[in-house]
C-alpha cells in the first residue's frame, strides 16, 4: 500500500482535474488525493490518518470559498503530524502579503504561478517529494523510479555504509 499522499486543494473542477492528471507520473508510488476546499481537505487528512497514510506534499490553491490556501498551510504547520509535509502554493491570485505569510508562517517550500507548465510542476513535485522521502521514509527504494533517482541512490548507499 502507498504510505505517502499528495493532496491537491483546488476549488475549480477543471483546474483540479488538470493538476491531478499532471500528477499522474507520481501515482505509481504515491496516493493522490483531491479536495475542493479547505474543509474537504481536512476530511481527506482525517481519512488518510485513519488509514495510516502520511501527508508528503500539500499542493494548494490560494483563493477558494471558505478558508484560503495560505490559511490551510499555516494551520498545517501548527500540527506536529504535518510539519514535515512539503508545502507548495499553486495560484494566480495570492498577493504579496499572503505569500509572505505563507513563507514565514507555513514554511512554504515553493510557489507555482498559474498557468503552470506541466514539466515545471513535475520538477517541483519531484524535488519536494524527494526531500520528503529522504527525511521521512524508512525505505527509499520504492521511490527511486518516480523521484530523483540519483539522489535517492546516494542516500541509500550512505545508509548502507552507516550500517
Amino acid at each position, binding site marked *: 500500500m502507498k504510505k505517502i499522499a499528495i493532496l491537491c486543494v483546488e476549488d475549480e*473542477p*477543471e483546474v*483540479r*482535474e488538470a493538476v491531478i492528471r499532471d500528477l499522474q507520473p507520481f501515482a505509481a508510488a504515491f496516493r493522490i488525493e*483531491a479536495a*475542493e476546499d479547505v474543509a474537504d481537505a481536512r*476530511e481527506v487528512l482525517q*481519512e488518510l490518518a485513519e488509514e495510516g497514510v502520511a501527508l508528503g506534499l500539500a499542493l494548494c490553491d490560494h*483563493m477558494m470559498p471558505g478558508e484560503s490556501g495560505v490559511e490551510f498551510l499555516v494551520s498545517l504547520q501548527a500540527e506536529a503530524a504535518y510539519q514535515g509535509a512539503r508545502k507548495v502554493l499553486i495560484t494566480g491570485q495570492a498577493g504579496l502579503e499572503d505569500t509572505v505569510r505563507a513563507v514565514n508562517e507555513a514554511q512554504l517550500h515553493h510557489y507555482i504561478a498559474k498557468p503552470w507548465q506541466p514539466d515545471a510542476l513535475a520538477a517541483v513535485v519531484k524535488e519536494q517529494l524527494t526531500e520528503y522521502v529522504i527525511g521521512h521514509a524508512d525505505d527509499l527504494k520504492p521511490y527511486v523510479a518516480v523521484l530523483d533517482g540519483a539522489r535517492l541512490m546516494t542516500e541509500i548507499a550512505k545508509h548502507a555504509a552507516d550500517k
Partner: protein
Amino acid sequence: MSEPFNPLQIGLLNLTDEEIEDGLISELDFQLHSPPRLSVDPGVTLFEEEQLLNGIWILLEGQVELYRRIKGEKIIFHSRTTGRILGLIALARNSRAVFSCTAKTPLKLLRVSNQELDTALQQSDTLRNLLISVLLQSMGRRQKRLIELQEEVLQLNKEIAAEHEQVVQTLDELQKAQAMLVESEKMATLGQLSAGVAHELNNPVAAIIRASDFVHKDLLTLSSRMADGHGLQDILERSFHSESVSTRTQRVLRKELAKETADTELAERLVKIGIHHTAEYRQLTADVSGSPEEQLEKLELYHQIGSALRNISSCAERISGIVQSLRSYIHADSPDSEYIAVQKGLDDTLLLFSNRLRNVEIEKEYEPIPEIIANAGELNQVWTNIIGNALDAMDNQGKLIVKTRRIDEASIAVSIIDSGPGIAPENLQKIFQLRFTTRKGRVDFGLGLGLSITRSIVTRHGGTIEVASAPGRTEFTVTLPVKGPAEQVRSSSQENAS
C-alpha cells in the same frame, strides 16, 4: 520787520490754494522785479530726485510730470501733490528734491534761488505770510493724502488677502480637477485597452470552441470505425456530458465501490472515470477488446479525452462570458447616453468582481424598473466604485445586497448594502471628499478618488447619492432620473467640462 505772522488773523487760510498761490506768485514776482520767464520744451527734465535744488520753481503755464524711481520702476505721482510751486518740500530737506520732474507740455517757469527767496522774504511780510500759508496748506493737503493713502493701503491689503484666499481655493480646486481628470483619463485608457483585449480574445476563444468541437466529432468518427469503438464512444460521451462530481462524493463512491470490487485501487480508477457500479463497468467493457487491464486503460483514455473536451469547452464558454461582460461593462460600442438596463450593468459589474466574491453571499432584490437614459460606461464605474468599496470594507467576506426599485414615474433607486464594520460617523461626511481613504498605507487601485468621482458622475446624471451606515450594515443609495438629467444640469455640467 513789521507785524508778526498771523495768517489766521488776516484770513489768508480761508482762501483757496489757488488764490494763495496766485498771491504768493504775484508778490514774489513783484519783490524780485519780474525776473525773466523761462521757457521749457516738453520732455526736458527740470530736476532729478535727490538732486540739490537750491531754490524753487514756479509753474506759470503748462504741466509737469512728477515721478520717483522705485527699484528701477518709474512711479508717477499726481501733479496735484505739489501744486504750482515745485521744490517746497525740498526747502525742508536740505534742498534735496523728493521727485524727479519733467515737462509734459511746453512750460513757462519762474526760477527763484534760495538767496532770492530769502531776500524777498526779508523785504515783504506779506510774502512771508503767503509762503507760510502755502506751506501749511501744502502740509495739510499732504497729510490728508497720507491718511487717504493709509486707508487705501489697508483696503488694498484686505483685497489682496481676499484674492489670495481665492487663489488658494482656485488652486485647490484645480488640483482636484486635475486629479479627477488624470483618474478619468486612466479609466478611459483602461477602458480602451480592455475593449481591445476583449475584442482580441474573441477570435482565439471562438477558434478554441470550434477546434474542440472538431476534435470531438473526429474522435467519434474515428472510434466508430474501430471494432470495439462503441463502448469507447459511450464512455467519451458520458464523460463529455457528465457534471463534475465533488471530491467528497467521489470518496464516498470510491468506498462503496471498493466493497463491490474488493479492490481499492480498481475502485479508485473506476470512480475517477465516472463508473460507480461493477454492472456499469461490465456493460461498458462488453465489446472492448483486450485484457481487463487493457480494457480499463482504454476506458481511462477515452474518459480523459471526454472530460478534457468538456473542460475545454466549459472554460472557453467562461472566457467568452467574461469577455462579453467586459465588453458590455465598458460599453465599447455605444453612444454617450441611451436607454440602458441598470440591472444588467450591476450584473456585469458583479461578474467582473467574481474573484473577490467567493466568500461573499450575494442577494439581489431586483424590482422591475424601466430602462433609464444614462451613460452605461459611467454608471458601471459608479457600481464598481461602490461595490469595490463595500468589498474592501468587508474584507471580501460577508453579505452584499443589491437592490433596485422604482421610486415614482420619474426616478429609480439602486441600493448597495454591505455587512462590513460600517463607516465611523465622523467620516460619514468626508467619504465623498477627494483623496479621503481609510485604506492606510495600502497600495490599492484608486487614489481615494473613487467616491468623489462617483458622486460627480451621479450628479451629472441628475441623480443623488446617499449613505447610511451602522456597524454591520452600510447602505449606499443612488437615485437616478428615468429620463436623464434635466436640461440645466446637462448644460451646466457641459460648462464645467469645457
